[in-house]
């Protein structure tokens, strides 16, 4: 799931080498932490958070497949 977030984020930003992802799994809930370059924050969030919401939607579907929950946090 870390790879999913990383793949999408790297494809959206101007500085893919600065994309960092962390994954913390605490009993059934996976927390994905995404860090991108300051200038790219808007690209992974999108207008009105639409891009972030879309990534979260994919993450939930992916987590549901393995009976887990997932959260995405974009770290500033």
């Amino acid at each position: 799931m870390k790879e999913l977030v990383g793949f999408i984020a790297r494809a959206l930003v101007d500085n893919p080498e600065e994309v960092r992802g962390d994954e913390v799994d605490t009993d059934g809930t996976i927390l994905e932490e995404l860090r991108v370059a300051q200038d790219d924050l808007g690209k992974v969030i999108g207008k009105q958070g639409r891009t972030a919401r879309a990534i979260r939607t994919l993450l939930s579907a992916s987590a549901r497949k393995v009976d887990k929950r997932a959260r995405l946090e974009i770290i500033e």
Partner: protein
Amino acid sequence: MTVTLQYSGKTVEEAIDKACRNLNTAREDLNIKIITPGSKGFLGFGRRQAQITATPKKDGSEFSAAPQDTPSTTEVDISSETSQKPACRKSKKDRGPSYRGSRQEPAQPDPAEILEISTVIKEIISLMGLKAEVETTVVNNRIKAVIDGPDNKLIIGQRGETIDAIQYLVRKIISHKYPHKLFFALDVGNYRSRRREELEELALKLAVKVKSSGITETIAAMNPAERRIVHLALQDDREIRSVSMGDGLFKKIRIYVPSKKGGRPARRR
């Protein structure tokens, strides 16, 4: 040479809309900077306009091709009042005829782009831990990708939210690399056509109900593509009207008999 234009509106959204309409460009092709986000105020007090600047993105060939003697930063203040419309029209004229229209017909897609789309979709699905085949076709120069496999239900999601999210992200990813306008649609199994039939059926059923009772009916919030299906299904029926209600991407549709409700403004589109 880049052109930066300033727009304002009641909300950032409205200002961006104006920028797009004014520049005749898709939102994705504009770099937008928010100067002030604006504020709705309280009971009409303390209302502030949202201000943004819009710069066409790097594929500015069309923009730089246009004769541009104006300074690189032109201020165009268009507020919602119609009285200020001329400013809008004037700046459009300045820009020259080399603009691509929003109703532009798709050009033949680049094979590399089609391959890229299919690769990105496959990669996303496999990284999601799901199994499916992806078939990409080109119909009337529009790229169509169909996902099919044992995980279809998960890929569609509730009321299509997952498939819509994938389509949105693929679109974003591809237009990040290929800046021209992209004609691309994503389907899972035959979800889209099934949903279309469902919506058309619902629209016609409600139309009958509204006509016999005279009572306005509402359909739950839908995305633009789905609203379009409903509006198109009802547009030839002279006895009723359909209108989208609400803010943002998802709006409800209200179906009503025009004489009722004391002269609601005729349909907007």
